[in-house]
């Protein structure tokens, strides 16, 4: 195969670097971690503290406001009810808190970065390989140092989820804006629209279907991280799945898996509803 004489390795320096970080900067990272944790606990507190039927109704209201579709609204209600009936209510709320936070942060990071990438070729050049790394570097490789730094539990889980889930949103925001009809943008420019006005009034609305496809993927990928999240101690549905599969209890894993799928569908349909222009509702 490949001649061994050419080999080199970065193993030791990397391991030493991680060691050094943990030993010397552990407390700094812990402080950051605690701050993020507070927000998370707040969201979780609200979701878990509210009676289940209130949560279901709240989601149905959101679904209605977002989509104005009766069938979908009822569907959301039934799906959440099923989650409850499978005995997964509490886990679902914990996972929901984590996913809501991760999705929100992804949107807050992803859309602006996507816009920058669309506007500046240089940003795009730098960002694309980074996204490749974020999507394909196995989570555990960065999770191990992350959890040594931030401690076990929800915080590294949220970070890993964001790292893994944000790239499609960035990529598709970029693509969507680049695909906007050049003539329409030119007309806005000719009438003296400011860059911000053109962005918010013309480019983003016209790129919306593509951006929403990105958000859909971000939500899907976030929810596909639920199990990984619980591998580092985040509670919720992932834990149940893990427990099911580690004891070869496919049924148990499947039930919790269904919970995850339902969460994905509910979150996706509601966000897609809000992203659709009013005209087509």
């Amino acid at each position, binding site marked *: 195969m490949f001649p061994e004489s050419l080999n080199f390795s970065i193993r030791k320096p990397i391991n030493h670097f991680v060691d050094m970080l943990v030993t010397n900067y552990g407390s700094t990272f812990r402080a950051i971690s605690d701050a993020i944790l507070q927000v998370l606990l707040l969201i979780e507190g609200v979701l878990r503290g509210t009676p289940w039927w209130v949560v279901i109704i709240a989601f149905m209201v959101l679904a209605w406001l977002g989509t104005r579709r009766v069938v979908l609204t009822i569907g959301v209600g039934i799906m959440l009810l099923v989650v409850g009936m499978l005995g997964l209510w509490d886990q679902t709320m914990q996972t929901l808190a984590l996913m809501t936070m991760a999705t929100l942060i992804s949107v807050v990071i992803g859309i602006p970065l996507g816009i920058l990438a669309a506007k500046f070729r240089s940003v795009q050049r730098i960002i694309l390989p980074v996204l490749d790394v974020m999507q394909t570097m196995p989570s555990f490789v960065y999770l191990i140092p992350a959890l040594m730094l931030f401690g076990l539990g929800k915080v590294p889980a949220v970070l890993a989820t964001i790292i893994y889930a944000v790239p499609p949103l960035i990529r598709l925001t970029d693509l969507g804006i680049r695909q906007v*009809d050049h003539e329409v943008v030119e007309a*806005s420019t000719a*009438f*003296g629209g400011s860059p911000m006005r053109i962005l918010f009034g013309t480019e983003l*609305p016209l790129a919306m279907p593509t951006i929403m496809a990105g958000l859909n993927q971000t939500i899907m990928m976030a929810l596909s991280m639920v199990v990984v999240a619980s591998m580092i101690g985040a509670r919720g549905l992932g834990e149940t799945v893990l427990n099911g599969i580690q004891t070869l209890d496919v049924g148990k894993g499947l039930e919790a898996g269904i919970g995850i799928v339902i969460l994905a569908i509910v979150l996706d349909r509601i966000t897609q509803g809000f992203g659709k222009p009013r005209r087509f509702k």
Partner: protein
Amino acid sequence: MSGIQIRGVSKIFGAGADKAIALVEQGLSKAEILEKTGCGVGLRNITLDIPAGEIFVIMGLSGSGKSTLVRHLNRLIEPSAGEIFFDNTNVLTLGRKELRAFRTNRISMVFQSFALAPHKTVLQNVIYGQISRGTARKQAEAIGMEWIAKVGLSGYEHRYPDQLSGGMKQRVGLARALAADTDVILMDEAFSALDPLIRSDMQDQLLQLQRDLAKTIVFITHDLDEALRIGSRIAILKDGELVQVGTPNDILANPANDYVARFVQGRTAVHA
């Protein structure tokens, strides 16, 4: 008000404009340059004065550079060479902010291809210029509704462009430019999709605007009758070059060359 001065403007499309511009200076033809460099010659060394408060008509063969020329005036296109002055300031040196202010307040445009925002209603499209300028929405809508009525689209204000016919779209573009209420209006074949009744109505409105508000209007048309009717002055382009400028009568009476003569021949009998 001292109008617009265009000084030695050339425009080359495509990569390798430098090489092409040298060939332009050597006087090679558009077709030769296209073949040699793959570059399209949009304009070659145009020098032209557009006086303020007039309707200035630009005519010429299809592909002769009319759209390219007017797009230079609001800097949608940067020239490969030359300068453009507007009220004695060089438009090409405007900073980003100034350029924006210039576009919101001084100059608006009707696009040959309409270029309406497909996600906005007719009304939202029409008030775009006013909103950009910072006019309150209510007031902008009042102005917008007025212009929608004037172009004959009342009742369609909440429709979307894809629900309109070709001529209706063009009128939305027209109303958008007029509602912006700028000193200069660039009109790139703004009436080409209109029927004769609406068209003559629009011509009247344009003349009135020019008379009452002393707007400067740069008007591209293929219709010689129209040019003669509304133009204070007519410029004729060919292959990116300016062939003749003058009042309608000048041009009808003394065509600069054969091309111009052929161009106006159909109508000489009627109006001369």
